[in-house]
């Protein structure tokens, strides 16, 4: 099987043509005529495109716990590890190369208290009491694994499939595959804390896909998008008048160039930008949200206000048709608990617990959860052996991701790690499998979603990716 997996990345080359032939223009107002193939993508890269199969989810909200949350202290209890606390790791588990060279250190049990929650009785530790209330909506994948040892490669892989930068982010692939459902807002939005994500914008880059598919970072404050605000002193009326003049210039230029639809698309791009100038500030304006809603997301508490705001923004964005929202919690490796995990995770769990629970509750109450795939996870988990006595090192060999909504069957765990939580042993789910499954829920087949680049029909899962069927069936 592995061999086939490694060899099949060129099999479906001709399907892309078929895909594009079926892809028409979804954008009213652009007389683009018969658009096929790359020409279509170039003329109107964000035109709506039909999915490969009926989608279960319309949007994704990806809650990215950057730095690597400890699965064995949150969703994956290991009684055996607690028993072996203080002992060296038995050789039978296989000694890995770790980021900090800690594999010879003694095992460290989890001091957390664990409880069964909900109808399904899923385990959650006392670090996530609010999220625990939603377990019946969660599919907890306990057997995730990845290839990177260090943050930057691992964050990059969780976004792009490869630990080496340069490939398109999953959000970019989704934008490329489905097009935009609301042209007045970006299709792929990234939100973060006040620190920068490791590796920065390359994590939401379009890679070798055209630039139109890259993620847009929403900044804090009332100007979420770079260059959104008109220059100082330029009123909306004045801007409109300038644009009217620009339209005149462009239309005169295009007079004897009617065949050139790109010129027309460019005229249209200014109109879209103008509309975005109005709609984007509206989406980040939370003044019309009720106090109850704000409270639900923890906006009334200084610990949770920042991430809660991002979670609330995420809901407002998907409500308006934004397809892919990625929220970093602890951006800049916040969860990276090499020492004193108690303080580190204590803080980040408090920061994320109530907002995430609030988001799930709010989406559900508004009937949005069924169309919105919510994903929670980090770039890797943490080791069962200690680092510096009270911390844990990076663990890409086994960790937890959970999904909810968007067609996901809740109240279940999928896969398992070994007895100490070091490696995924049962039903391992590689990053590519996670990506393939997310795409599947959005109606995209990760094998057929291809783009020709330097002689290869590239796809989001590179040469891998198997669907985690348990998620929806």
């Amino acid at each position, binding site marked *: 099987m592995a*061999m*086939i997996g*490694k*060899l099949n990345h*060129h*099999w479906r*080359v001709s399907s892309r*043509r078929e895909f594009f032939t079926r892809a028409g223009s979804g954008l009213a107002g652009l007389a683009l005529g018969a658009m096929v*193939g790359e020409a279509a993508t*170039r003329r*109107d*890269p*964000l035109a709506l495109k039909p999915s490969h199969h009926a989608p279960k989810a319309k949007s994704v909200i990806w809650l990215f716990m950057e730095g690597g949350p400890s699965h064995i202290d949150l969703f994956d209890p290991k009684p055996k590890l607690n028993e072996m606390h203080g002992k060296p790791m038995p050789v039978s588990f296989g000694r890995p*190369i*770790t980021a900090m*060279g800690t594999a010879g250190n003694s095992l460290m049990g989890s001091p957390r208290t664990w409880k069964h929650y909900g109808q399904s009785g899923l385990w959650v530790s006392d670090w996530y009491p609010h999220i625990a209330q939603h377990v019946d909506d969660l599919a907890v994948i306990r057997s995730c694994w990845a290839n990177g040892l*260090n943050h*930057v*490669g691992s964050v990059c892989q969780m976004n792009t499939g490869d630990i080496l*930068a*340069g490939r398109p982010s999953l959000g970019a692939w989704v934008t490329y595959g489905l097009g935009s459902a609301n*042209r007045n807002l*970006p299709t792929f939005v990234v939100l973060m804390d006040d620190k920068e994500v490791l*590796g*920065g*914008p*390359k994590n939401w880059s379009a890679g*070798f896909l055209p*630039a*139109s598919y890259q993620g*847009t970072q929403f900044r804090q404050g009332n100007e979420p*998008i*770079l*260059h959104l*605000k*008109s220059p100082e002193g*330029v*009123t909306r009326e*004045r801007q409109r*008048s*300038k644009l009217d*003049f*620009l339209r005149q*210039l*462009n239309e005169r230029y295009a007079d004897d*160039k009617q*065949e050139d639809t*790109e*010129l027309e*698309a*460019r005229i249209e*791009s*200014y109109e*879209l*930008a103008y509309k975005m*100038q109005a709609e984007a500030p509206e989406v980040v304006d939370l003044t019309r949200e009720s106090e109850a809603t704000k409270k639900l997301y923890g906006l009334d508490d200084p610990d949770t206000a920042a991430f809660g705001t991002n979670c609330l923004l995420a809901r407002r964005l998907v409500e308006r048709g934004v397809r892919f929202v990625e929220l970093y919690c602890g951006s800049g490796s916040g969860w990276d608990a090499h020492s004193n995990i108690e303080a580190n995770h204590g803080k980040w769990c408090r920061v994320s617990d109530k907002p995430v629970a609030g988001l799930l509750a709010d989406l559900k109450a508004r009937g949005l959860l069924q169309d919105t795939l919510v994903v929670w996870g980090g770039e890797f988990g943490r080791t069962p052996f200690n680092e510096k006595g009270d911390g844990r090192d990076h663990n890409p060999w086994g960790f937890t991701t959970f999904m909810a909504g968007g067609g996901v069957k809740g109240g279940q765990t999928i896969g398992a790690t070994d007895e100490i939580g070091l490696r995924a042993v049962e039903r391992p789910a590689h990053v590519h499998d996670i990506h393939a499954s997310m795409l599947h829920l959005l109606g995209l087949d990760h094998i057929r979603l291809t783009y020709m680049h*330097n*002689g*290869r029909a590239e796809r989001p899962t590179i*040469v891998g990716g198997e669907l985690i069927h348990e998620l929806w069936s």
Partner: protein
Amino acid sequence: MQRNLAAAGLFTFAVCSFTLLAGGASESKTSKAFTTQQKRWWAFQPVTQPPVPAVNNRAWVRSDIDAFVLAKLEEKGLKPNAAADKATLLRRASLDLTGLPPSPEDLQDFLNDSSPKPFEKVVDRLLASPHYGERWARHWLDVARYADSEGFKSDETRPNIWRYRDYVIGSLNQDKPYDRFVKEQIAGDELFPGDPAALVATGFNRHFPDESNARNIAQRRQELLNDITDTVGVSMLAMTVGCARCHDHKFDPILHKDYYRLQAFFANTRIEDNLLLTTAERRKEWETRNALWEEKTAAIRDEMNRLIEPKRQAMFQESFEKFPVEIREAVTTDAGKRTPFQWHMYYKVRPQLEYGDSQAAAKLRGAEQKRYNELKTQLAAFDHIKPEPMPIAQGMIDNGTASPKTHVLAVGVYASPQEEVNPGFLSILDPSDAKLAAPAGLDSSGRRSALAKWIADPAHPLTARVMVNRVWHHHFGRGIVGTPNDFGVMGERPSHRELLDWLSAQFIRDGWSLKKLHRRILLSAAWQQSSLYREQAAAVDPDNKLIWRFNRRRLEGETIRDSMLAVSGLLNTKMGGPGVFPPLPEGLVTRGGWKKIEDQPETVRRSVYTFVRRNTRYPMFEAFDMPDTHESCGRRSNTVSSSQALQLMNNEQVLDWARGLAARVSNDQGLTTASKVERAYRFAYSRPPLAEEVDASLRFLDRQSSLAGSPEAAFVDLCHMLLNANEFLYLN
């Protein structure tokens, strides 16, 4: 293209099944026999010298290029367009060759020139301009995946890599023969010892993204070798050799083994970031002066070292212990006993173990810290006799004469070596091992020299064709082969195979002169055609592959910015030097740093000098499709997006440039508004406005004056929109 893809699909399937049946390990053994189809692949055939075809419409033909183009058109019953008007041609040539629009004076000179060949003079003038190198270097920098920083997490600055960018600019301006350009970049250190430019050129293979805190050093080295192999493959051979990293290439006759044979040429290279660029004489002089400084400061420095050495040792030990035992052994093994592979591990891990004085000194506390700072002050008193550091380059050199072994790697995994291979070329072109000779008098393996000579051999079927095609691609907006980085089965077929050969043969005969090639192309009727659209021609050849008209296309982000700076009169034409930091939009942070306040004149230099932070492309360039610098790019995307519109409408700098243009056209007394409008048009579009355009502008200014608060502000708005309009953004 699509037909080819379909054919390729079938072909793939066959290869895949075959490979599966054969099983992984015996893969390379079973696939040695190339099919006749593979051996006959056009790109592997020697470059021929086809006769110039006969055509009917001989009046249109200005050069032999035209005969090749016209013959194809006539075959399909198509006619080419007539030449574009003179103003359009001048603008086209200026933007194409120098990335800057012509000035109104340039245009006047050209229109007034009644000598027999005025356009030839224009082309020669533009090719002689130093701006030519600045413009065309950007194209090669895309191919070379050039950046000023490391990438990965910290994205640290590569402080001297800018010399490579200047090297490319300089090489183009000097019209350095392309074969030499190739040789210098692959093996300049071995082939041209003593030539500083050739040392700088080895930076080509130094442009891989790298991770400063990588823990798995063996894997990291393999990734760098892959990056170098892939880049050399696509950049100089237009072969996607990277597809053969895990298995035989699915489409092209490139064996799994070939990938590692090619890689073996680089197996002994390592990073060297302190390549001295001075002459032996200057170096000696420097050493004498430095020795004096060392002598005078010996006591101070000794004491400083005694203070920080324990700290440095502790830091070393802490880092050292994080590495697996093989790496630690590579460090602790005596230099005389290190294996070649251990040397490479040693060099790769060393930067993570070495701590500078200031890093170690930062660990000092109390009295020690106080004493250290006193000594530092004392030391500074000798700064006046300390010689300035010598200029250095960052590049790639060999680690001595003995190379580590290279193995075929099972599915590309560094830890799964299979059969050992020696340096060798693509088997379909030459199946034997490369003949290697260590260069006399140098501590180097000579491997890269062998590769450089093979690539730059005039008989090589790919090298000249690939470069000629790149040049054609940039002049016409599409290559004769539409995929400049891929001449393989998955790439496009040449639209004019004979022309490509004829040009390639001519290119070699011209001593690989790029300027002669540019000149030949720009003086052709084919290039000088108007972009006029004709429905009947489009019905036959909708993509204009046969070149019945000129391809109108949007300028690159860098050229848009440079053109705006030029017409605003604000462009600083200073050449060369370290990357500069024009302002970033508010709210954008970059890891690795962006100089907060740059000297104003530095902010208005040509875009090619803008610092390239690998993880954060300059927003304006990124929005207009500057490629990701993580891998080679031979053909940029061309997109239209609302973020481009937002940038050009709302960016403060663009507005500054509009103000510049407004001030420039208003700087004469007694101008009527209409004549100001006319001047603005001449600067922005290299033409006077039509009467109706003047009228429309005046109506706008009238309306805008009240909205903007003053006629002056309204005029800035007018200039701003002139710069936003398609006529400004498109090469026509």
